[in-house]
């Protein structure tokens, strides 16, 4: 690999790296928040609302992210939604992730033992407090592996943003490849980068999981 390449393209790649991380983090944050809200709304016993949310989840999960992103970015202006590329990319990632996160949260909510909620109800605790102090911690324990998995998947989905000209890593790499014809190095470098990113997310997830489930440990494996 030509070291001049790195000197010349290094800053752009670094910027791309930053944009990738930013899009991923912001997309995850939106996806998690929206997914949680969708899960809660879905629990309200109003049929039309349930249908709408269900349709939303089915459509998002049933269509490729690339197409959703095109619709948002290129189709958006048709309904007066004119978004800058990076904004559209982040929003797209968030919307895409939200459908999956909503399903994960739904399973997590159902996994919280009913008796724990009944105990809180019988003490006269308000729903908001029960949700925050009883259900949410219980949910997180059972959903962290699935949430982390989805977040790892989203790191890889960020490459799609290059297609709508978000200047993230893939975009910068493609620019470099097009200008230098060094496509093998480019692709290898990219693969390595995304693998490292996924690995970092997974490790963080495992640490979080250990932390969150500490209270479940028995004396025999307390120091694990």
């Amino acid at each position, binding site marked *: 690999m030509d070291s001049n390449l790195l000197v010349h393209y290094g800053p752009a790649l670094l910027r791309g790296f930053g944009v990738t991380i930013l899009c991923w983090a912001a997309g995850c944050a939106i996806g998690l928040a929206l997914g949680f809200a969708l899960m809660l709304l879905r629990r309200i016993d109003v049929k039309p609302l349930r249908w709408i949310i269900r349709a939303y989840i089915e459509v998002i999960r049933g269509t490729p992210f690339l197409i959703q992103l095109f619709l948002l970015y290129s189709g958006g202006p048709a309904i007066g939604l004119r978004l800058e590329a990076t904004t559209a990319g982040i929003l797209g990632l968030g919307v895409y992730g939200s459908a999956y996160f909503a399903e994960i949260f739904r399973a997590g909510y159902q996994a919280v*033992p009913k*008796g*724990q909620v*009944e*105990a*809180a*109800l*019988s*003490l*006269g*605790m*308000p*729903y908001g*407090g029960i949700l925050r*102090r*009883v259900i949410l*911690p*219980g949910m997180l*324990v059972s959903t962290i592996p699935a949430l982390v998995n989805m977040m790892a998947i989203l790191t890889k989905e960020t490459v799609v943003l290059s297609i709508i000209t978000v200047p993230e890593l893939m975009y910068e790499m493609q620019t470099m490849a097009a200008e230098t014809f060094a496509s093998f190095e480019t692709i290898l470098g990219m693969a390595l980068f995304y693998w490292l990113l996924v690995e970092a997310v997974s490790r963080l997830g495992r640490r979080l999981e250990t932390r969150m489930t500490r*209270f*479940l*440990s*028995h*004396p025999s494996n307390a120091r694990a």
Partner: protein
Amino acid sequence: MAVTDTPTASVQRVAAADDTAPMVTIRGVSKAYGSNEVLRDIDLTVNKSEVVCLIGPSGSGKSTLLRCINFLEVYDRGEIRIEGQLVGYSETTPRRRLSNAELRGLRRNVGMVFQQFNLWPHMTALENVAEALVQVRGLDKIAAAERARLMLARVGLADKADSYPSRLSGGQQQRVAIARVIAMEPHLMLFDEPTSALDPELVGEVLQVMRDLAAEGMTMVVVTHEMGFAANVADRVAFLDRGRIAAFGPPRQVFHESPEPRLTQFLQTYHERNSF
């Protein structure tokens, strides 16, 4: 707010407030799942400071009846009143079911102890007891922790305050669950088979705490298979069979003088089990 009183004193004060009005009145309560009638026309009155045990074979409706009293379970017909207040339905709009939010005022005065303890596993014993004190009684964190410590001491678990439920035995978990309830100074306590999930050698410690509560004048409705407890601690015993109260009265009368053949048959299984 009387939270700094010793719990014993406050229980006695509540009991002395108005001894004549009943704590719980159940009138003509029925409940069905489809065509399966689990409760049929139940009448039952529980007076203040009284301990009433509900006994009967599994599926007889005793747990369902207990859970109707704080409306964790919905009843279809009849009415239940706690200290005169209608449980679960609007007083003004007939049969309008109250939401969980509307039931909070009633439930904060009615404690419930569950068969499976239902402690929150991510909180320590102390946090389990303190949580509702903060959220429902509005105590600040320090005052709540202080009071929670007092309650844990009362059930003999002062040294387990910082343990998570997974580190406690079943008997200890159930005592934490009882501490969580008495910290709220309930007027009435409901026990849903509180010792059924325990190893036999741990049953005694939980029953002892319940005996102490009864001695201090707590009003208690107890679903139980512990016939010894029912015989010695209950003021009155109700035998449920297929959704009806088939026998009711002081324990001596129910256990020894009832002509009800289903009851004789039910008690026979206990005699057989204990004669080895």
